């Protein structure tokens, strides 16, 4: 939470960035409010809203019952009536109970009526924390097929803030995927800029010439690590951070692949119909005549995410696999 104390802290984490961006938007716009389980006095399960209750009061920091369906539908109603709710799901996994109001009420309302539904759905998501099958899910594929939703997945501290600001200001329902794994692992020196980062614009996170790695969220960090290792072998990897999955900045991806002629798509979600399938299909169609190797997907196995460390590690993509795959594709 951006209290004065922390403004002068030396480092800002990915988690701090979300907290600061949210507080800034609540300061800026009276119609923005936060709702979810335990977000009030308690500051939320991950402490994103620590101190918010003191700062904004119970009117704008709203503790809800354990009623994901009901409070999400309620957020839709509040948005239709002019507010800009930010909904915190305690874990992204619980959004399964809100699937219906998200896809049937929120996502289709503007198309049907012309009335915008500006709701930001904040979802702490992903694995690697030994939290098991129902606390580690990557949820983007449940929603990416649904017209009318935007999906945002920051990979850096700066984007965690900048993209959240844009998501809140956006007039559409936005699924904002926060990496639990990165929350306290990524840090940058303070202070953090609180400028919006536009939605729908991918970023070349690292330039390269031999192979393009397309990813988002924690995968971008893995990709950068892998690229660093491969650089020492003389393999030059271009890393693209999608930042926004919907809308997808396919132009930036296609431009890179046309340059490198090779593409690998990486995510932590299970392989089958992971978002990588969409990205790979688009690349395959748009870059067919430029490709020197098949577009290759790296993803989790098609299993639930196990809890126990040796099992979870075996199911989720590890950096070693990313390095090997990139090497193989680059040299093929």
């Amino acid at each position, binding site marked *: 939470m951006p209290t004065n104390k922390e403004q002068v802290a030396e480092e800002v984490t990915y988690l701090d960035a979300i907290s600061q961006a949210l507080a800034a938007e609540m300061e800026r716009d009276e119609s923005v*409010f936060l709702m979810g389980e335990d977000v009030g006095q308690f500051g939320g399960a991950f402490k994103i809203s620590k101190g918010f209750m003191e700062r904004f009061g119970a*009117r704008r920091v*709203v503790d*809800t*019952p354990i*009623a994901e*369906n*009901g*409070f*999400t*539908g*309620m*957020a*839709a*109603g*509040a*948005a*239709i*009536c*002019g*507010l800009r*709710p930010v909904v915190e799901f305690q874990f992204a996994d619980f959004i399964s109970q809100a699937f*219906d*109001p998200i896809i*049937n*009420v929120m996502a*289709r*309302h*503007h*198309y*049907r*009526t*012309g*009335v*915008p*539904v*500006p709701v930001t759905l904040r979802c702490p998501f992903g694995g690697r924390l030994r939290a098991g099958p129902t606390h580690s899910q990557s949820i983007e594929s449940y929603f990416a097929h649904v*017209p*009318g939703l*935007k999906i945002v997945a920051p990979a850096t501290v700066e984007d965690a803030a900048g993209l959240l600001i844009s998501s809140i200001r956006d*007039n*559409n329902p936005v699924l904002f995927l926060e990496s639990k794994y990165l929350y306290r692992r990524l840090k940058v020196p303070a202070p953090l800029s609180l400028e919006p980062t536009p939605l729908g614009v991918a970023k070349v996170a690292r330039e390269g010439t031999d192979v393009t790695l397309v990813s988002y969220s924690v995968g971008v960090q893995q990709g950068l690590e892998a690229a660093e290792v491969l650089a020492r072998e003389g393999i030059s990897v271009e890393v693209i951070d999608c930042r926004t999955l919907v809308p997808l900045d396919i132009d930036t991806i296609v431009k890179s692949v046309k340059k490198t002629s090779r593409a690998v798509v990486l995510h932590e979600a299970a392989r089958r119909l992971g978002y990588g399938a969409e990205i790979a299909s688009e690349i395959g169609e748009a870059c067919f005549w430029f490709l020197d190797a098949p577009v290759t997907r790296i993803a989790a196995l098609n299993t639930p995410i196990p809890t126990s460390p040796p099992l979870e590690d075996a199911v989720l993509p590890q950096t070693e696999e990313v390095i090997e795959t990139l090497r193989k594709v680059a040299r093929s």
Partner: protein
Amino acid sequence: MATTRKKTTGKSKSPAGGVTADRELCLKMFRTMALQRAVEDRMVTMYRQGEMLGSVYTGHWHEAIAVGTAAAIRQGDFLCPLHRDVGAHLWRGMPPWQIMASFLGKATGPTGGRDGTLHYGRPDLNIYNPCSHVPDNVPVATGGAFAFKYRGEDGLALCYFGDGATGNGGYHEAMNIAAVMSLPCIFICENNQFAYSTPLRLTTHADFYKKAAGYGMPGVKVDGTDAVAVYEATAEAARRARAGEGPTLIECVTMRMHGHAEHDPASYVPREMLAEWAKRDPVELFAARLQKLGHATEAEIAAIRENVRQEALAARKKALGDPMPVATNIEEGVYAD
């Protein structure tokens, strides 16, 4: 909180001496109920003539509920209707031809043909356009109620749902949230004895109005064929809501006199049940009441009936003549700017 609330638009409707003392109001209510009946009868004919895109849902015997509730709140309040509530749309100002246009998929329908049949609303009239899923309009209504409270305004949200919909989790979560947050929300349960083919005994083992106690909110039961009773119960719930006293559940008991929709002959409904309820036509009952009250003569009532019949006929004509949408810009509007 209540004392500092900003006034919403629309005049408050709590005539001294009750609704029956207000002749103008009573006549407008009667006309709207009669118009609902006329419009829906016309739509049934249109369905039978194969003019409609899909099936037609009617609110026969629901007119007192739709109109009695809508009349007791303000135009600025957030109205979240379902498929039996044509009278509430009409009260708010939705023209009959536009409802028909929705069932015809016309460009002039409220969604321009993007949605259609029973799924329509008018944002400018503060009428929410529900999606198919029942009762997804109920959490949405609590959100509207939340917005009024958040802004310190004295508006309220009113939503409708059927007996069947009460078995659904969305209803429960919203009722509970509204109670806990003391939201200005009115929950209208339209108990019409059936949910599609499902009779009450397969829907619930408790009276609907009694469910309110489980949420710590008042629950009242009214005769859903009595427009005055519905009006008064709604007016009291509205008073509570605006005073910051929280939500109310009102169970309005009536009968679904047609099939679930016109494709459904409803052979599962006992004929005696229909015969019994046929004696309690809310439009007829209100007409009789108006005469007894001296608000209208038989001739005046007949004139209103003829007038709404003509309006329904004209509506059909306009709706049928209206253009179908053209598939240009079909991808626009998926996202708001």
